[in-house]
């Protein structure tokens, strides 16, 4: 079955470009230019995924509102925020409102397609039984590479796709320092240093929320981060 992706983007050139690419990758695209237009159609029939820009025409934070409304309609709907804004504040807001991933418009189309595919894979994998070779166990941590889910001491840790790949990059070689470039390469993202820092902070917080004694991620200043067991 063809996956149906809703694309809400006010810039027509970008909207058309992404639509073309999505079609080429075999998705069905529902392009919208504004929040009310998208909401009117989507609330009657939810898409398989929504890609939303934050600034939608006159609505500065229209994307956030749309993200919240869509999340209210469905817990399962994968949402990606694609924005020109790259500030920590916007990223945190987007993820807090229920977006599964946050990408900046610097992201290349192939990268965007890879992220969309990864997100679909995670959603699809929920129903299937995990295959052993796709599981990474590092002490108390278990990563399911198929579903892109993580558990710590048996408790699920809800990570975004970006965060998941960062954790994966860290635990692939326990004790090795991963610098920022390596982490960005693993997560296939283009962000600056301070965003990596805040990602790592958020990952730590998520683990600490599950286990207050969590201290497996160590900062090596000037070099990067490493996972210690």
């Amino acid at each position, binding site marked *: 079955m063809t996956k149906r992706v809703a694309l809400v983007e006010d810039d027509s*050139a970008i909207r058309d470009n992404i639509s073309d690419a999505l079609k080429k990758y075999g998705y069905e695209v529902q392009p919208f230019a504004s929040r009310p237009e998208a909401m009117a159609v989507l609330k009657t029939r939810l898409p398989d995924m929504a890609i939303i820009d934050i600034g939608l025409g006159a609505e500065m934070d229209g994307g956030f509102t749309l993200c919240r409304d869509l999340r209210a309609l469905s817990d399962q709907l994968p949402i990606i925020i694609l924005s020109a804004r790259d500030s*920590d504040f916007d990223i945190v807001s987007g993820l807090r409102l229920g977006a599964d991933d946050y990408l900046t418009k610097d992201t290349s189309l192939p990268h965007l397609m890879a992220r969309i595919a990864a997100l679909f894979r995670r959603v699809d994998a929920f129903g299937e039984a995990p295959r052993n070779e796709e599981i990474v166990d590092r002490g108390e941590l278990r990563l399911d590479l198929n579903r892109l889910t993580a558990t710590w001491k048996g408790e699920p840790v809800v990570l975004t796709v970006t965060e998941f790949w960062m954790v994966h990059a860290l635990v692939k070689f326990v004790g090795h320092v991963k610098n920022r470039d390596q982490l960005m390469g693993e997560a296939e993202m283009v962000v600056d240093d*301070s965003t990596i820092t805040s990602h790592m902070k958020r990952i730590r917080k998520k683990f600490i929320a599950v286990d207050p004694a969590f201290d497996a991620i160590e900062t090596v200043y000037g070099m990067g981060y490493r996972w210690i067991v």
Partner: protein
Amino acid sequence: MKFLLSIRGKLLLVSLVLLAIPVVGYRFVTHMEVFLRESQEQALVSATRAIAATLSERPGLFDRREATADEAAELERRQIVALFGSSDPEAVATLGGAYQPSPDIERILELLGRSASRIWVVDAASRVRGLSGSLKRAQSPAGTTDADSSRPLSRALVRLFRLPSGDAKDDPEQGKRAVMAQVDRALIGSPSAIWRYTRDRQGVVLSAAQPVWSGENIVGAVVVEETTGAIQLLKLEALENLLTITLIVFVAGFVTLILFAWRLAARVRKLGRAADAAIDAQGRIRGELEPSDADDELGELSRNLAATVRRLKDYNQHLESLSARLSHELRTPVAVVRSSLDNLKLHPVAPETAVYIERADTGVKRLSTLISRLSEATQLERFLQGAERETFDPGEVIAGCVAGYRATFPSRIFAFENAAEGVTLQGVPDAIAQLLDKLVANAIDFQLPETPIDIRLARAGRYLVLSVSNQGPPLPEGSAATLFSSMVSLRPQGPARVGEHAADAGQGDTAVGHLGMGLYIVRLIAEFHGGFPEAANRADGRGVEMRAWLAITPAG
């Protein structure tokens, strides 16, 4: 000297204008005195003339026979008369043989006598035929003279103004000659009035002489003398009053002016301090200026300054947010180009076309890196706002960073010296690492090949100083203050340098050009840690040293 140049000092000098009051007053009093003296002289001359006329009407009063006495006796009498006339009013001078009073003349003189004057009549043979009155009495007409002169102010004035006018003879010998000449002139028919000092020089005596006629002959002379004591006293009193009033006015004016100047200077200083505090050494607006609500010019100046600072602050904020807004605005068109290129790559294209797509792609990637760099400072500001301060060992952070640099730039030499072991900072270690990144990136750009980059941690008072120095060209003159501002770059522009740095692959900073944000970020982080950045040429003159001062115990 400094005090005199201040507003207070200047107003003090200006208040000396008040000294004109006593000067003007003194001139007025002097004029008054001259006027009084002239009228006294005229009165005396008329009195003398009246006495002379009275005596002239009685020719029998002068005994003609006795006028033919011997010459020697007459000369002696003349001397005695002159001596008597010029003697002090207080002195006990006697006429001796020269005094040959005529009861008739004395009686007339008694009748015509004036209370404050001495009248004497001399006949042609220099015999004093009549004497009436005394100058002594004139000395204390008001009865208050003694009391007055005991006051220190009066005494000072007497000493100050003892010489009122210049035409009085002051030599005792001269005084004697003057009296003699006056009498002689009168005896030959010429009336006169002269001013002279008393011998003790305490007073001035006015004397008028008139000839006494008997038919066609001069039979004698009338001399009327008066001291000017009354006028002197009047003048003293006037001067005393003047001085007292002037002193009061002067002190009152002076105190008022000083208070006024004090307040003015205090307000100006307060305004100056506030203006100074509003803008820091780098020209950055630190805070608002509290506008004064006073209605005068200073209040207006304060309001104007406050408005200027506010406008300047708005403008600065506009400039500082410009890069962030610019980067945001540029992102969308760049995304359009990028996604178009990406789509184009999905189509089969001829190899010769693919080259251009590849180039366009590289260009867009550089552009987008530049754009993220533009917003880096704004990002950092937001990051710092939300960051939690923790206590950490900066030496550890910096040692880690240096190890990272050695790994990233194997061809370069990094020397690290930690002279502040055990010092801990309160802040964000990641930010400190970022600060060092920027300082090192800067040092790398200006470093001479084969020379080390020296990184040093040292303690200076309540600051921790992180310095990064490199050998290379010195800072341009006068650039140190603006170096840490947003969008200021002092790099020489040119393809040669860009090419040289492009060799350091992997460092976006050097490969894609500069926007002057790096050192601005250093400043933001240093300020967040209660410190400030500093740039200076090295003491040995061979390069530049950048320092970040970080407060060891941040305020609050």
